[in-house]
């Protein structure tokens, strides 16, 4: 999935923006690693919180959500667009696109829609999660896991 999406982003010329794909619960599935990386996780938590809240507001106000629903926070050169979509096997997702110093930000509105469409048609994400990853984790292992992070 990662390589397919990376190639598609280059193909449509969206590689001069930071593109992030995440599930509606906030887990980040793909990140194009473009641009500023400062506090990436914090920024993502805020954006995902904003999109979720915006979606909820629309729902509460009975605003009909169609395929063009998009959250946009941008000026004439910098901004963030976020758009709900889904994978071809119906896992609900958000695509987030961040850009700066752009002469024509509106082009990214078209590009984010293209990415959403590409995911709908080409990307499958469903996993059949049957097995436990770990069994019998000991207290010592947990202590060791926390050990390295103490001040």
């Amino acid at each position, binding site marked *: 999935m990662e390589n397919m999406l990376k190639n598609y982003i280059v193909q449509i010329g969206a590689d001069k923006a930071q593109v992030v794909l995440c599930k509606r619960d906030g887990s980040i599935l793909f990140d194009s690693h473009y641009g500023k990386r400062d506090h990436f996780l914090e920024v993502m*938590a805020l954006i995902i*919180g904003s999109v979720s809240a915006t979606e909820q507001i629309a729902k509460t106000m009975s605003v009909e959500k169609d395929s063009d629903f998009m959250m946009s926070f941008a000026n004439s050169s910098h901004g963030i667009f976020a758009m709900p979509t889904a994978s071809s096997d119906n896992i609900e997702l958000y695509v987030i696109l961040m850009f700066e110093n752009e002469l024509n930000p509106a082009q990214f509105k078209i590009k984010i829609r293209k990415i959403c469409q590409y995911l709908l048609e080409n990307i499958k994400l469903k*996993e059949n*999660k*049957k*097995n*436990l*990853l770990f069994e019998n984790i000991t207290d010592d292992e947990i202590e060791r896991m926390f050990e390295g*992070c103490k001040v």
Partner: protein
Amino acid sequence: MSFVNYNKKEINCKIVYYGPGLGGKTTNIQYIFQKTAGDRRGKIVSLDSDNERTLFFDFLPLDLGEIRGFKTRFHLYTVPGQVFYEASRKLILRGVDGIIFVADSQMEKMESNIESFEGMLSNLKEQGYDPSTVPLIMQWNKRDLPNAVSIEELNQKLNRFSSPTQEAVAVRGDGVFESLKSLSKIVLMNLRTNLSSN
């Protein structure tokens, strides 16, 4: 939310601190922030009011050490405790992997604790969870206060699923890491994968 990236050998989990207003949820993550090395934690994001009441959520990303070759990253969230922020609490519970319920031990807070706990169960159900199967630690906070009720009473009135418990005085840090460690263990042992763990 738990997301296991096999290529990077990395595990991401979402932990939510839930409980009544002014119970000590934000204090828990502030203490964790203070006592964690700078290269292992991000910034605390707090969406709060002028008087430091949480409006939407607090967020702290933590890079813990490795477990069996996997890097572990925990995303800690708090919910706003005030009654009228129910919609925000629902959103923050999306994709939760484990919950630390921070109960206020003071006698006069028992009703708020019960109301918050019941709200949590109903919000989890709305998100499609069976609340009895979600990893949960009950943290009895503010144990140092003279009007704290007995542990027996807290257990009897709040600990519906006989979850593991932890006494705490979050403002001093007592019980804060202990709660997170206990929950981390349960969360990691609940992670499911489509690959064989062998």
